């Protein structure tokens, strides 16, 4: 299996340990990754997609053309990157007019785009190609005894025709099964499918309400589950769900919201025995408990 790795902006800049985790575990799982050299922003929905179609699709085309040049599918972790690239590709592929226009714009750069490279989300590849079963086999350290909850990236669910890969977009199972493959118990809860609220302008324009909105989700987790951690699969979810907890704690004046948030790839890497200092180094909500658990398990193993 081989992919062209597209990291986007946040991961390499803010959470490189997630990047490390992806690289490490993909390697372990026999997936060959090459970097998308000279890639640019996906573009994020708040940027060119909000100004005009040309700049949007030209930018998508730029990125897609890189993978097409390598005759590989693109592997993405960031939800927005995934969704933006998928939608960009959708437009380029399904409208001759748009495809022409994009290629017109790309032409001077010596690039072309036809849509031959598919855009794949890392959790899709793990879930559908590698499969939880194989992951379970590979895992060296089991999280058995830990409870986790999962956060599905909206961008990998809706609209299901464009971005979906779950058998049942209204009842997704991928994240749950992937985490269970690591031996942990996944607790369901009433707001499992509620958006983290981190993307777009919601948080910027009305932070009060955005935080209230997120609070309902965390309260549900606290009330309804025994969660030792939250597994996400989108860089925005990761960062936002940490930040919100800290903000909430300031509000209530006590450390009530302190559930560590992991990108799934980090948990995976850890369970594959990768160095915590490398694959799970950065966080804004302490991960010590989980790290300790894994350390102990490592010793035992």
């Amino acid at each position, binding site marked *: 299996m081989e992919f062209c790795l597209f990291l986007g902006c946040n991961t390499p800049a803010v959470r490189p340990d997630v990047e490390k985790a992806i690289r490490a575990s993909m390697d372990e799982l026999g997936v060959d990754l090459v970097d998308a050299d000279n890639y640019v922003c996906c573009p994020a929905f708040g940027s060119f997609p909000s100004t005009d179609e040309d700049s949007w699709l030209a930018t998508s085309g730029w990125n897609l053309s890189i993978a097409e040049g390598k005759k590989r599918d693109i592997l993405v972790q960031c939800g927005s990157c995934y969704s933006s690239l998928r939608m960009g590709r959708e437009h380029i592929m399904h409208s001759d007019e748009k495809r022409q226009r994009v290629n017109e714009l790309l032409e001077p750069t010596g690039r072309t785009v036809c849509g031959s490279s598919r855009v794949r989300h890392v959790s899709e590849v793990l879930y559908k190609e590698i499969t939880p079963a194989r992951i379970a086999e590979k895992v060296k350290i089991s999280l058995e005894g830990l409870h986790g909850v999962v956060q599905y990236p909206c961008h990998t669910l809706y609209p299901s025709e464009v971005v979906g890969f779950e058998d049942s977009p*209204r009842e997704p199972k991928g994240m749950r099964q992937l985490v269970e493959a690591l031996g942990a118990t996944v607790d369901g809860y*009433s707001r499992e499918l509620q958006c983290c609220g981190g993307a777009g302008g919601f948080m910027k324009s009305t932070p009060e309400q955005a935080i209230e909105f997120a609070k309902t989700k965390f309260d549900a987790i606290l009330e309804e589950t025994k969660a030792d951690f939250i597994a996400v699969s989108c860089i925005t979810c990761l960062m936002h769900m940490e930040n919100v907890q800290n903000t909430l704690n300031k509000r209530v004046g006590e450390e009530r919201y302190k559930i560590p948030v992991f990108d799934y790839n980090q948990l995976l890497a850890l369970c594959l025995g990768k160095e915590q200092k490398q694959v799970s180094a950065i966080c804004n909500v302490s991960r010590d408990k989980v790290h300790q658990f894994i350390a102990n398990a490592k010793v035992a193993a």
Partner: protein
Amino acid sequence: MAENKPIGTVLVAGAGISGIKAAIELAETGYKVLLTDSSTQVGGILAKLDYQFPSDHCGMCRMLPMVGREYSSEYCMRKSLYHENIEILPFTEVVSVAGDAGKYKVELKKRARYVNSEVCNELGKCIEACPVETADEFNHGLTTRKAIYKSVPHNVPQLLLIDKSVCTECGECVKVCSTGAINLHAQDEVETREVHAIVLASGVKLYNTKEYEDAKSYAVSPDVVTSLAFERMLSGTGTYRDGIIKRPSDGKPAKKIAWIQCMGSRNKRQNRDYCSSVCCMFALKEAVLAKEKGGDDVETTIFYMDMRTFGKGFQQYRANAEEEHGVRLVRCRVQEVVREPDGNLRIRYFDPETNEFQIAHYDIVVMSTGQIPFDDHRKWAELVNGELSPTGLLATEKYSKVRLAGKQGIFMCGSLMGLTDISEAMASGIAAAGEATSFLNAIGTDKVSFEDIAEPVTDDRQLPKAAVLLCKCGEFAGAEGIDLDMIKTEVMKHRGVGTVHVVNSICSEEGQKEALDVLKKAKCNRLLIGACQPFMYRRKVRDIAKKAGYNSSLVQIFDLLGIARRGTEEASKLAWTRRTINEIKADLESIKQKPALHVQSVPINPTALVVGGGIGGMHSALSLANRGIPVHIVEKSGELGGFAGNQIAATVDGLKPMTMAKDLKLKVFEHNKITVHLNSQVTKTEGTLGAFESKIVSSGTDQKTYLHHGAVIMATGGHEGQTDEYGYGQSDRIVTQFQFKQQLESGAIDLSAVENVVMIQCVGSREAGKREYCSRICCMWAVANALKIKEMNPDVRVYVLYRDIMTYGFLEQYYTKARAAGVIFVNYDLNSKPQVEIADGMPVMRFTENILNTEVEISPDYLVLSTGVDPETSNTELAEAFSLPLNNDGFFSEADSKWRPIEFKQIGSFLAGVSHSPMPLPDVIMQAEAAAQKAYTYLSGGSINTARVISTVKDALCIRCQRCIAACPFEARSYNAAEHRIEVDPAGCQGCGMCAVACRNNAAEVSGWSDKQMMSVIDAKLADDLQPSTAS
């Protein structure tokens, strides 16, 4: 060749109510019917419903024939149906249809039940023995059943079957079965049958939570149920017999219940851009029932988009649900249902009242699930090789909802046409039967003539002497614990018993021969036959008795297994035997006291009178005339065709009423069996059942005609309503929908000079004190005109101010089309009606744009008012002349709004089309066909047989208090002032006995059910004079 014409035979595929109705109609007309159903039970969805609006009772039995009841069982329809001419094949699939018009070869696959119902005695020991528990689909998995089970709790007989998908073949059932009815290795049987015509009545698949992805955002808990499942929760035979509505998950009494409408329907994204038509009324009814059953503290909320109360009486029902019962309606489609940890169901919605988001919690959420018609239609299209319409539905002939396009002799009815409510199912079933009989008639098939054994004249005054036959089929007699020998000796002792004889298997040919010989020799004048499941071959037994010279009314059929089946306080052979003896004696007493009853035959004048020469009237007339029935059409205007036929050139769905009317007129005038009376009105009708005389007055002349007829069809139409609201009449720019349509078509309007057109729906309609009903067609007219405008000049801005858009069924597509064309639909409600002023001849308007919550000001070039449909004003005089009932709105009142939509309570009077209620042309024609069929069944016999069991008046005892008249549900009793006596219409009487209850002095008596009789029966029941000595 006339001799050996084949008996007309029709396959009715689907035994839901429309199929049953079609079958009964055909059978009543004298044709043979194969009634198949793929499910294990008869009755379709209705078998699951205990309550139907508006009465909120069941009323299935009301679809039974009103005359000649002798031949059809008078059982509760939800239990089952028996008819001489109907062969019922449940659990049977149609696998292929070959041949062509008039001679179809159908392959039927009878799926194995593994239980031979011929032999099974339904004691259900096998069910007790079966170790397998599984979800009971009849109660939508809300209860469980065994692998061997009775598919419908209330069916009689209880046909058992084995669900092989869960059966472990452990054989426990086989061990306990004493009749050897179970064969675990039974195979499906395929047999080929020849039929002349086919009626498709299979209904359609319903949207469900299992198969459909988009349902999963709502079906998040066992407490989210489909409307049908909820119906089972309400049902007396359903899940919660104690009558309290509980949460399936934890049995907590449900106090807050929400309905979510349009589940699976009105969803373009899922390629379901149609409305399922019935769900709105279903939800309203369920909400009302929930309150009545669960108590006043039950809160019911319906989340809807448009409350589609387009049918007769629907709007009034909605008003009542809201005002009387406090059912809350919220116009909002919700995105999801979330299950809270405590099991409550959270719904977030935008409340248009407050213009704010609300979060509410419910105990139960009901999904108003709609239809998924396409698979079924494709299946049938392939089977009968019929065409599919662009929408993907079986194409029908133009103007016909029941006749398949290009398929002679194949028809459809019921929910296959798109989900139908009960009355439409009835009408369509009858119409399909009508088309089928016309077809059978045309291809020259014959009707069944019953083997007419003359009813023996028994002298019932001579001393009663009863013969008793007891059926013994080795399998059960001894084993099932009744001692036939003891019964024999004991019954023989009973006074008035001539002979007691044990016959082997009276269900078999030999058994019947034996019985006949015995009876001939016996020289008795009364007969009691004891057997298992006797009702299965009631008529056979009656015929044997007749041949042996016993009057049918003096024959009693006794269910020998009844006791064991019902169980006794003490379950011993002796107890069962003694009870059986006791009950046999009681039955003997009953027939001993009984007089011999004879069927009366009332002659019918086989001529029909059709009032109203519109398209519907003409259709009825032709349908009858083509089958040889002479018809008079009385039309008050000087022109046949009525409103549609003379005024409407084309409708949005491509029909051409005027063209059609022209064609019909031609046929009508040419037909030698039809007499047309123009400029004429019926002023008086007199006479008795089957022989009416109507006085016709023709305008211009003072000459009076007297018509003689046996039946009448009311086909008076309607016309566009009038109004003085919204400045109508004050400006030539304020017009009605119809005027606007005409001006558009005539080119009187120059659309290039028009910028804005505003339409207002429900003008003077669906409003207390005005037209309280929905006129059903106005929304389509508005949509049609709007589309026309957009087609002629896309730049014109069209605003349609509506309350609920009534584009039910596949008309929804036109609503979508109109929006796609840029028509803006603005919702308004009664307490904020649009305001209209006139400024120099032009309308100036203000209305609330309730999405943006702002006031809109606009000066349209045209203001178009949908003023609804009014009934013909002449209805009042006609109702007077024929003494037929009108409802408050001025439309005729059918006998029963659900089960008998196209006939009056008065036998021999029928109605069709807008005289019933406003409806689109295809429905008018469907009703016209149905009315014709009803009239045909009734007229074609030349006479009708009254039932044996009818009520009588003992003048000597009668004090003329007339309470019985008020009590009679069939209006069969009347007071003859001239002779100062009460009279009974023998054909109208259904023998229900209400009058006998109402009568304080036994002056009203149901023949064959005298008090004397009943008291002897009681005596016999009370007396247990069996000496223990004999019973050892």
